[in-house]
């Protein structure tokens, strides 16, 4: 009897306040949305299976690394910014780019409630917060898209292909490629012979090979290879002993 009166009373009170009890009214209705999501996951998993590649081979330097899709922006942000960072000659301060900036970004995310302190909650009346959100979303979107594009590009351009497209018109490796005349004119009357790269790994250190690829000397044109491709070519060429 008491139980019955009690719940009647409560129901009236809740109704007047515009609230519902957590159980069962709220939870069961929210469960409809939740279970729809789980059911969608279940059905999707039946039809689309994740792929399992070859077993890991640490010696496979030609493999183009691919992060999980939600980390593409991290990898691409550091690829792109790292390129300009070293262009600016700041390699000595790599820790600023690779440690300080990420830590500051994470801190900025943590501290949002402490710099957006006004009582205003509507997004359009919080211009700074709104701007930061748009900036963040654009940042994530741009580097994710760029990362995926860059990855596909690199997969298509494995080092051998890069060599055939960018180097083989002048250089040869074990008799493949190379300029039939063997000469490049630097100035009237002066010629440079593009060296045979069959044993380049024994002659130049990886750092020297990188230097030559990025800032060529001795008549070789600048190939403007993307940073990841330079990494591949350095690995590849320094393995030619």
């Amino acid at each position, binding site marked *: 009897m008491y139980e019955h009166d009690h719940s009647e009373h409560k129901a009236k009170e809740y109704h007047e*306040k515009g609230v519902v009890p957590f*159980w069962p009214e709220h939870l069961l209705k929210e469960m409809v949305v939740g279970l729809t999501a789980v059911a969608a996951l279940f059905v999707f998993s039946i039809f689309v299976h*994740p792929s399992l590649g070859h077993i890991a081979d640490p010696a496979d330097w030609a493999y183009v690394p691919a992060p999980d899709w939600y980390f593409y922006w991290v990898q691409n942000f550091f690829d792109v910014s790292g390129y300009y960072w070293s262009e600016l000659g700041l390699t000595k301060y790599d820790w600023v780019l690779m440690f300080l900036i990420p830590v500051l970004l994470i801190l900025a995310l943590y501290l949002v409630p*402490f710099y957006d302190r006004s009582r205003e909650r509507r997004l359009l009346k919080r211009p700074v917060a709104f701007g930061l959100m748009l900036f963040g979303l654009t940042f994530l979107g741009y580097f994710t898209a760029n990362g995926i594009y860059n990855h596909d590009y690199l997969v298509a351009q494995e080092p051998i292909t890069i060599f055939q497209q960018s180097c083989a018109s002048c250089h040869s490796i074990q008799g493949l490629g190379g300029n039939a005349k063997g000469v490049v004119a630097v100035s009237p009357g002066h010629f440079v012979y593009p060296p045979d790269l069959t044993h380049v790994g024994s002659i130049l250190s990886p750092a020297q090979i990188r230097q030559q690829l990025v800032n060529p000397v001795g008549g070789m044109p600048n190939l403007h290879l993307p940073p990841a491709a330079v990494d591949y070519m350095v690995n590849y060429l320094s393995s030619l002993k």
Partner: protein
Amino acid sequence: MFTRFVRWLDERMMVSPLWRDIADHPVPAHTNPSERVSAFVYCFGGVTFLLIIAQFVTGMFLAMDYVPDITNAYNSTRYIMDHVLFGKQLLSMHNWGSTLIIIMVTLHMLRIYWMGVYKKPRELNWLVGVTLLLIILTFGFTGYLLPWDEKAYFATQVGVSFVQYVPFIGKALFNIIAGGNHIGAATLSRFFAIHVLFLPALLLSFLGLHFLMIRRNGITGPY
């Protein structure tokens, strides 16, 4: 019958007040998708929690057949896919579940942000929420290595190499995380332990905090 059982239990454990507290706590009607369809935006957090439970279940079953060492990690993953009853389905759900959780967490966070929910008095719960986001991303990162295929190995190599840039302790930190100076057998067993033991404990603790704080502060009203 049920009433008698509850009375029997209450005489020993006094569970009724706890249950009444959970069941009767008022939730604003405007967060309920049956009141207004647009209220589904309030469900992203709850859906994430439900998906986390699904990850726990599928993960437990996967751990029955998975072996975290460098020769058998790959082979046992293949075995799960090809020979275990519903193994392919389990693996698939665990894999896509992580993707769906990332999407839901992002939507949840965006909702909190655009509605300005993190404002006083809820600042502390935002801190817990960002920590939960980082924990979930670490779940994704450590789980990615476990199948031990090329994709897994090289992505982990790139990811772990970032810690080398931490000033002063970078090298030491790399050795701690990778279990040596390269990604290898020790890394795999470490990542397995982190993925199935450390992170779930952390996740549950912070989820507990997250929910306690929601109870304390209530759900934000309309503007």
